[in-house]
């Protein structure tokens, strides 16, 4: 029960923080829609063209905007010492990583998930594809959150080169993108592709607490 309470307390804090940074969430979403407009304008108004490209566009923008928020992942809490306070309050570095990953998923990815239906209207994505898009995105975005956790904890030690972390995430997410977009375009293979994606998710999810926790520990030691 205490553990559950602690987890709830953790998320209460995250919630307060993220809401005071509510504009960041909004900025992400607005970025998402503005870019969709850019694409529509550069493609021209023909419906078929748009709907062919729609899914690819949604996926890339999702990836890019989650890299946008990487800096918030640990950096702020690290700099004002709150990461340490969390640790001293009984959260091992690994569990901090897991909780933070879920929090990123919750406060950064879920808003996107919610805005997908609207985006799909703009992009003329067929209704029957929407479900596949949702499924692949739910899995894929969680993988991205895990990768984001790993790379931004690595960046706490690196500190100089902020973009490097984003690049690493992006390189690793190439296969995810390929599979996810594949899911939607080749519906026959849906099951096998989704299970590959799920496999990747499990691997990344298992690695995440170790890798991120290790980096968090090291960077707090050296601060």
């Amino acid at each position, binding site marked *: 029960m205490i553990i559950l309470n602690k987890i709830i307390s953790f998320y209460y804090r995250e919630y307060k923080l993220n809401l005071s940074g509510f504009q960041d969430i909004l900025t992400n979403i607005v970025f998402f829609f503005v870019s969709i407009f850019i694409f529509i304008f550069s493609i021209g108004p023909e419906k078929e063209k748009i709907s062919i490209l729609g899914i690819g566009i949604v996926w890339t923008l999702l990836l890019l905007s989650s890299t946008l928020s990487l800096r918030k992942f640990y950096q702020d809490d690290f700099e004002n010492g709150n990461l340490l306070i969390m640790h001293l309050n009984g959260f091992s570095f690994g569990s901090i990583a897991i909780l933070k990953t879920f929090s990123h998923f919750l406060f950064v990815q879920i808003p996107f998930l919610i805005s997908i239906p609207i985006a799909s209207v703009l992009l003329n994505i067929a209704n029957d594809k929407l479900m596949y898009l949702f499924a692949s995105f739910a899995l894929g975005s969680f993988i991205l959150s895990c990768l984001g956790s790993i790379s931004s904890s690595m960046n706490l*030690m*690196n500190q*100089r*080169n902020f973009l490097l972390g984003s690049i*690493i995430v992006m*390189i*690793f997410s*190439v296969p995810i993108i390929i599979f996810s977009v594949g899911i939607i375009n080749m519906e026959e293979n849906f099951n096998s592709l989704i299970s590959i994606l799920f496999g990747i998710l499990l691997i990344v999810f298992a690695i995440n607490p170790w890798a991120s926790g290790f980096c968090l520990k090291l960077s707090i030691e*050296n601060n």
Partner: protein
Amino acid sequence: MKFLVNPSKFNEIADYIFKPVLILSIILFAIGLLFSFYLSPDDYQQGSTVRIMYVHVPSAWLALLTYAIMTLYSVLALAFRLPFGFIFNTAVAPIGAVFTLICIISGSLWGKPMWGTWWVWDARLTSVAILFVIYLIIIFMNLSFENRIIREKVVAIFILVGSVNLPIVKFSVDWWNTLHQPATISKLSKPSIDPSMMTPLIIMTFAFIMIGIAIAILRIKTEIISRKSYLS
């Protein structure tokens, strides 16, 4: 063979072989260039642009080979705790990146007359581009991480993960039906290439290898020295 894993042994051997390797590479280069420009025939389809091959193919092979060796050294360093692996990887990554860049540039130069475009998004070209980015990430990580002990482990793991890309580069032409030339020279059975083209190709390949080794020796030695000063 101890010099391949032991820094001080490496230094000894390197002092011996550096000059011969350098001289050999210059000679091989001279002969190779001579062959590729004057002593080999034009291709009946491709005309004289085929001569780009003598740069393109060796650099492509070496780009892959370098990464393969780096993967090997990562395993040695991580699993068998041989720090020389880290030294080697730090020193050699830029060399691999340069080979990859040469491969890409020469390939594009070749692609323009052959395919009518500098670049297409077929599987091989894409995977080579990714290989290049992986090399760059390795270099950037080496430059920007502060804590060396962590850095080299992280980089080694990254190299291991990135090695997934190698078979994709190598076999993409067989797995997917792409624009790029399938294996004609490196086929396990009989190569389907004319011997008159084979000779300069082999010579150039050796020239590239020798140059690679020479630069690698220099870089590994400086890396060893910089670590020594760090420790003392």
